[in-house]
């Protein structure tokens, strides 16, 4: 039937016999409903006056008893006929599209997505929760597989974002609410108080140098390897280059004294009374790029999904550090100015042990997946170390080396062959401290021997896990996430940058562990998807939506409670004199997704779902 001759048959029958509705007994509506509707339309019938009796998947293919199957087929057709008799012509709903994209997260993925979208000519609101954009890439020293300096390639992009006329950059801000639907979202964004007037501040940093609270808080950009004062800029290349005052340690907030920054700031930019502000923006599409965080080996609460590593000391040894800490130590702008020194006593380590797959690929610690990037960055770390400490020894404990990617395997070979990094295949069972050395006990599974190395520094390649608030954010936006908290793509192969929620796209490590090239590729793809969406002025939607019969509605608003999309509003009904005499439910046709939960909930039966109204279903039941 779905072939051209079949469709022609339908068209001819409609014309010749003057039909006003049709029933097709064929395959599943999920296969060819659209085909037959189009055929009907071309013969002048409303597409919603087409019903399909599923005689293939639900009947002929699944029943052996021919007689029973034939009888069932007859009944299925009869049901479809009874339904189509009561079907009403419907027209597609068209909704306008707001031409603005919200990008959540200002790491490399968010930056790339914002730039691509803005360069396509659309407005962008980029929301970043930290005081500066840049994400994890800004913390890296050099990047695999080319060993080019991370800051050098990132900073120009950060500046470009800042200066782009189409991008509104909101740092130190968070998305607190998303309402609406594809093409018509409404985002509520909280801008946290910086206590610095952004318009007046010139970024001179005088307040920072004069603030007396020098060593009050760990510098999280430096992965707690350094301290910062109460008023700070996370790192020198920060964008925007405007400080933040940390209320929790600032002396002014403690006892009302100090105010040193106010005295030194000649532009009068310090504003202790600044409050959090809320901003509401109309948005057409959303790109989520909130990235990842690193698993740490600390002891976890018993109810945590993850377990810590007691065998590595639960984080009590200062010279057992993670990958990002090593990046900071290796970074020319880091706390050691790029000299490899260990945190406890500042000595140059002569022997470093790197351990891969810490947390990753370990069901007993709660993470089954491979974090994908750590094989590569561990090779990078060992190389950087050998380049700086020529007489140093670097050992890497690994399970497998997973270096899939352009120039990746070559990179690892270089570490082994040119830089003499010693790879040991096996796990480490224990680390403990002995006279300033870290005794690493492990196994060499190739030699079949236990090994013991007295290292000066141990670097753990800990797993990439979702940001702490990822599940909460997913619920705010209304997108699904996996059991770890990574956001789910709509289809793992064919729709990798779309979420299942229409109009919401994903980029970077918030979806699963990703390196920079992949994050950037995803970001550009997501930007492309978003701009496709914004390129038309209106969107067409299936007219399967619910509608309230206002005469019957009793105004109980139970429907409002059950609607999963918040499509139901309260509407005033006025008499001729304009006086409100009752309140009824009103369904926003743009927001309604057509699930029909409200119809079953409504006690007065005053809501009907177009295409599936009670009369139609009763007719089907009657024809059973």
């Amino acid at each position: 039937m779905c072939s051209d001759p079949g469709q022609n048959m339908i068209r001819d029958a409609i014309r010749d016999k003057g039909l006003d509705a049709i029933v097709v007994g064929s395959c599943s509506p999920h296969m060819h409903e659209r085909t037959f509707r189009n055929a009907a339309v071309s013969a002048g019938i409303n597409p919603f006056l087409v019903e399909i009796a599923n005689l293939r998947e639900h009947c002929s293919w699944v029943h052996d008893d021919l007689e029973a199957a034939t009888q069932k087929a007859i009944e299925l057709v009869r049901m479809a006929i009874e339904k189509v008799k009561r079907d009403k012509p419907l027209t597609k709903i068209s909704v306008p599209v707001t031409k603005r994209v919200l990008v959540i997260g200002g790491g490399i993925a968010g930056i790339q997505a914002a730039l691509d979208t803005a360069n396509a000519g659309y407005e962008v609101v980029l929301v970043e929760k930290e005081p500066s954009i840049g994400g994890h890439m800004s913390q890296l020293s050099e990047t695999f597989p080319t060993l080019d300096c991370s800051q050098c390639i990132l900073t120009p992009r950060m500046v470009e974002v800042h200066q782009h006329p189409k991008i509104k950059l909101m740092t130190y801000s968070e998305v607190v609410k998303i309402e609406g639907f594809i093409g018509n979202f409404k985002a509520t964004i909280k801008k946290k108080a910086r206590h610095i007037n952004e318009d007046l501040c010139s970024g001179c940093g005088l307040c920072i140098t004069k603030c007396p609270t020098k060593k009050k808080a760990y510098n999280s950009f430096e992965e707690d390897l350094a301290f910062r004062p109460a008023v700070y800029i996370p790192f020198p290349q920060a964008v925007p280059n405007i400080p933040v005052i940390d209320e929790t340690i600032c002396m002014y907030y403690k006892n009302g004294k100090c105010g040193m920054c106010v005295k030194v700031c000649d532009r009068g930019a310090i504003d202790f009374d600044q409050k959090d502000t809320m901003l509401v923006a109309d948005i057409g599409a959303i790109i989520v790029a909130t990235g990842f965080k690193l698993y740490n080996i600390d002891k976890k609460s018993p109810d945590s999904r993850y377990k810590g590593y007691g065998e590595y000391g639960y984080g009590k040894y200062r010279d057992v550090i993670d990958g990002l800490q090593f990046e900071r130590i290796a970074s020319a702008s880091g706390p050691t100015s790029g000299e490899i020194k260990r945190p406890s006593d500042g000595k140059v380590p002569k022997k470093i042990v790197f351990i891969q797959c810490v947390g990753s690929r370990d069901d007993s610690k709660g993470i089954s997946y491979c974090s994908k990037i750590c094989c590569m960055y561990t090779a990078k770390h060992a190389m950087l170390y050998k380049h700086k400490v020529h007489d140093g020894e670097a050992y890497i404990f690994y399970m497998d080396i997973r270096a899939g990617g352009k120039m990746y395997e070559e990179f690892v070979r270089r570490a082994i062959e040119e830089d003499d990094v010693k790879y040991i295949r096996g796990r480490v069972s224990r680390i403990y401290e002995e006279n300033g050395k870290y005794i690493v006990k492990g196994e060499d599974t190739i030699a079949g021997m236990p090994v013991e190395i007295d290292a000066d520094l141990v670097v753990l390649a800990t797993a990439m896990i979702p940001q702490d608030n990822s599940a909460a954010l997913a619920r705010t936006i209304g997108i699904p996430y996996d059991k770890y908290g990574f956001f789910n793509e709509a289809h793992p192969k064919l729709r990798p940058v779309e979420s299942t929620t229409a109009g919401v796209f994903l980029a970077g490590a918030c979806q699963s562990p990703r390196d920079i090239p992949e994050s950037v590729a995803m970001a550009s793809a997501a930007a492309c998807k978003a701009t496709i969406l914004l390129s038309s002025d209106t969107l067409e939607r299936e007219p399967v939506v619910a509608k309230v019969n206002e005469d019957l509605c009793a105004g109980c608003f139970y429907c409002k409670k059950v609607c999963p999309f918040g499509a139901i509003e309260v509407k005033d009904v006025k008499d001729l004199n304009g006086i409100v005499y009752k309140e009824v439910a009103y369904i926003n046709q743009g927001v309604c997704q057509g699930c029909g939960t409200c119809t079953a909930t409504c006690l007065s039966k005053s809501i009907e779902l177009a295409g599936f109204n009670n009369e139609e279903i009763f007719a089907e039941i009657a024809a059973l």
Partner: protein
Amino acid sequence: MDKEKWEPKIAAFVCNWCTYTGADLAGTSRMKYPANAKMIRVMCSGSIDPVFIIKAFERGADGVLVSGCHPNDCHYNAGNFHARRRWDFFHELLDFIGIEKDRLQFSWISASEGKKFADVIEKVTKDIKALGPFTAYKKMNSEFTAMFPEIPEADKEIVIKEKETV
């Protein structure tokens, strides 16, 4: 009625996204199951009104199956949670109104569970067969139609047809 030959009539209310698609999969995989159940497609299990079920019994169904997406997998996020709550209450009520609880069955079948779909239909058909034909409401229905002759065209056909077969 000949109990040997009697085949139960089962109405299956299924959601468009999971169970209906799961049934399609059972079809494309050529799985075999009894022909007793006929499906009524709705958009979401959340939209299935208990009245539909009562109506189905009234119109001659011997059993009813209601099936939607697995909890947390609902295409509409939360529709099946509302459905689940509703059915929990409704199931209790069935007993009270004189319908054996087992005549109404629920399941969650995802779009990838063709096998489960076939198994569920198999099981429901077997269970209903064991319970035997459901006559209470049919009798009432014919009395009812006798009282109110002006019923819609479509319904009338059914009644007539039923009289013929019985």
